């Protein structure tokens, strides 16, 4: 996905000039992210609420009387003013109550829990694939000028294969023609689940892995020609020493960032892949709930995706501050 593939770089954080160190830290790592999550969830909540289509249409079927519909709307609080509804949802969410699904008539948290597990396994597998492929191939591309063109070409191609095209291709080849893998479902039990989720994980990971390969390769490549690396060479340091302590150590920062962002974006990527493979994770749930205008579910899932993203980027930020002495001690 793009946004997926175009996902790049860390959102530049504000460097606020707050006087007190503790305030500044809290600002960067707590208040900012929380504000972002709140704003994002409110935006989504508001936009969705304002969208056309009456959820009651599905709840009561076509033959219900107008008064029954009206009563249902009141019961669900659909006619309350927007801020009130959001506040209601938010306070509930803070107490662990994400509301009740309109279509499934059960608590959103009950809907989410099993699907989160599925999505988590899928995303986890994809993350492993991405990190392994990205770091290994990227490392080869970054260090070996001989292999670099091939690695770059592979990555360039991989980035251009959207998950949904990969999905179709993989199903046709590995599931239908070769019959090695199932085409859908999440499976049950550990190995069965892995087996079911292999193709989806591959489809999900292609674009991201290619992106990571590029980032890794170029981070290492750039670092390898940095002047301080030249100094190291000029001092007769062994190649492996220079590679580990100067190239890898320094390239680790951008690579870590790219890896983190990739993994953070995976949950969103699952939105495309899950429905295509008939996997009932939170991605499929989101798509279904959007068309049913099941706004408690959509808001919860969206908030979850945004939260994962924000938490990961915040951690990355913190990680950078830890790893980079220039940031650590101020300037």
């Amino acid at each position: 996905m793009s946004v997926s593939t175009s996902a790049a770089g860390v959102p530049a954080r504000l460097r606020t000039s707050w006087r007190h160190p503790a305030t500044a830290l809290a600002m960067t790592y707590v208040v900012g992210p929380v504000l972002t999550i709140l704003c994002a969830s409110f935006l989504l909540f508001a936009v969705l609420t304002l969208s056309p289509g009456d959820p009651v249409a599905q709840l009561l079927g076509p033959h219900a009387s107008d008064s029954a519909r009206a009563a249902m709307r009141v019961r669900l609080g659909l006619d309350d003013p927007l801020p009130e509804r959001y506040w209601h949802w938010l306070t509930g969410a803070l107490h662990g109550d994400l509301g009740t699904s309109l279509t499934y008539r059960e608590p959103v948290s009950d809907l989410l829990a099993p699907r989160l597990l599925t999505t988590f396994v899928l995303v986890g597998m994809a993350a492993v694939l991405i990190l392994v492929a990205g770091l290994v191939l990227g490392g080869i591309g970054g260090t070996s000028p001989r292999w670099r063109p091939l690695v770059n070409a592979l990555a360039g191609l991989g980035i251009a294969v959207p998950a949904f095209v990969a999905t179709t291709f993989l199903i046709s080849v590995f599931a239908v023609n070769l019959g090695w893998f199932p085409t859908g479902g999440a499976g049950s039990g550990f190995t069965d689940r892995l087996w079911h989720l292999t193709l989806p994980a591959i489809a999900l990971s292609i674009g991201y892995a290619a992106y990571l390969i590029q980032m890794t390769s170029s981070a290492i490549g750039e670092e390898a020609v940095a002047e301080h690396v030249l100094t190291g060479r000029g001092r007769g340091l062994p190649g492996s020493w220079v590679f580990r302590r100067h190239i890898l150590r320094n390239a680790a920062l951008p690579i870590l960032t790219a890896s983190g962002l990739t993994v953070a974006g995976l949950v969103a990527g699952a939105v495309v892949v899950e429905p295509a493979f008939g996997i009932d994770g939170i991605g499929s749930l989101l798509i279904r709930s959007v068309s049913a205008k099941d706004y408690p579910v959509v808001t919860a899932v969206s908030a979850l995706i945004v939260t994962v993203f924000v938490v990961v980027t915040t951690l990355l930020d913190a990680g950078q501050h830890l790893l980079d002495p220039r940031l650590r001690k101020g300037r």
Partner: protein
Amino acid sequence: MNNAPLLELRGVGITAGDRRNRRTLVRDVDLTVAAGETVGLVGESGSGKSMLVKSAMRLLPRHAATSGRIDFEGRSVLGFSRRELSAYRSRDVALIHQDPRAHTNPLRTIGDFLVEGVVAGKLLGPREARQRACALMAAIGITDPEHRLTQYPHQLSGGLLQRMMIVAALLPSPKLVFADEPTTALDVTVQSEVMAILQEQIRERNLGLLFISHDLDLAAAVTDSLAVMYAGTVVERGTTAEVYSRPLHPYTAGLLACRPSATAVTRLKPIPGRPVSAYEVASGCAFAARCPFATEECRKDRPQLRTVEDRLVACHRVEQIGAELAQVVHS
């Protein structure tokens, strides 16, 4: 070791670029540095000074190639095996760069930086190396050396960092030091101090020094002999005193003449035109276009270095223009 000079360059040429457009950066350079001798290499920006040093350490980028002979203590540097090269770089020579900040790894401490050369080369154990580094720092007047070891490059001023570069260069007790414009980025007062330290240490240890600068006055003050470069070639070579007081090449003379005097207000005598790079010169003397004495011959044939009055000069018309040159400089 006998009489062979420490470093000897014979007919060194450097080209760079890809197959379709290769450029000559340095052409046919001869240069020697004897043990305990300080040789100055001066020339304007782009004349190929840094490239020459890099080639002497075999640090040229991949797309650049060296031709000719480079011998260190009679052994061909260009023919070194990997291990020999590593030993050569770690024990025999050291390089001090113009921009210390770019040449130190921002993510590692000064301590790591100082000792890694000797530790990786197994010349000293880590603890011993740190002690030696502290001793050396103290000797060149750096206060609180222990604390400095734990600091990061960004926490040090440029002058201090350049002194650290000197410490790092001297720690493995090399025989020859390349100093590539070590003070260009520094204030005059700091420059004076850094130069004093460098000179002191070089003299104390009786090391060879190839000192690169575009400041003729500075080079003249600290070196025993001088080589003047223009457009990738050495145009004049001799003892500092002679070259400085009585230049034989029109370019050297022009350089001396165009420096504003620190003591008197005079109308300057600039060299017309602009400095060119080696690849911009087709045939003939590179300086011909700017030389007031140039003749048809100068424009056609490239003059070779030849011995004139104990000196090497690359000019067809040395004999004819000697008197006029003296006037140019001293009027």
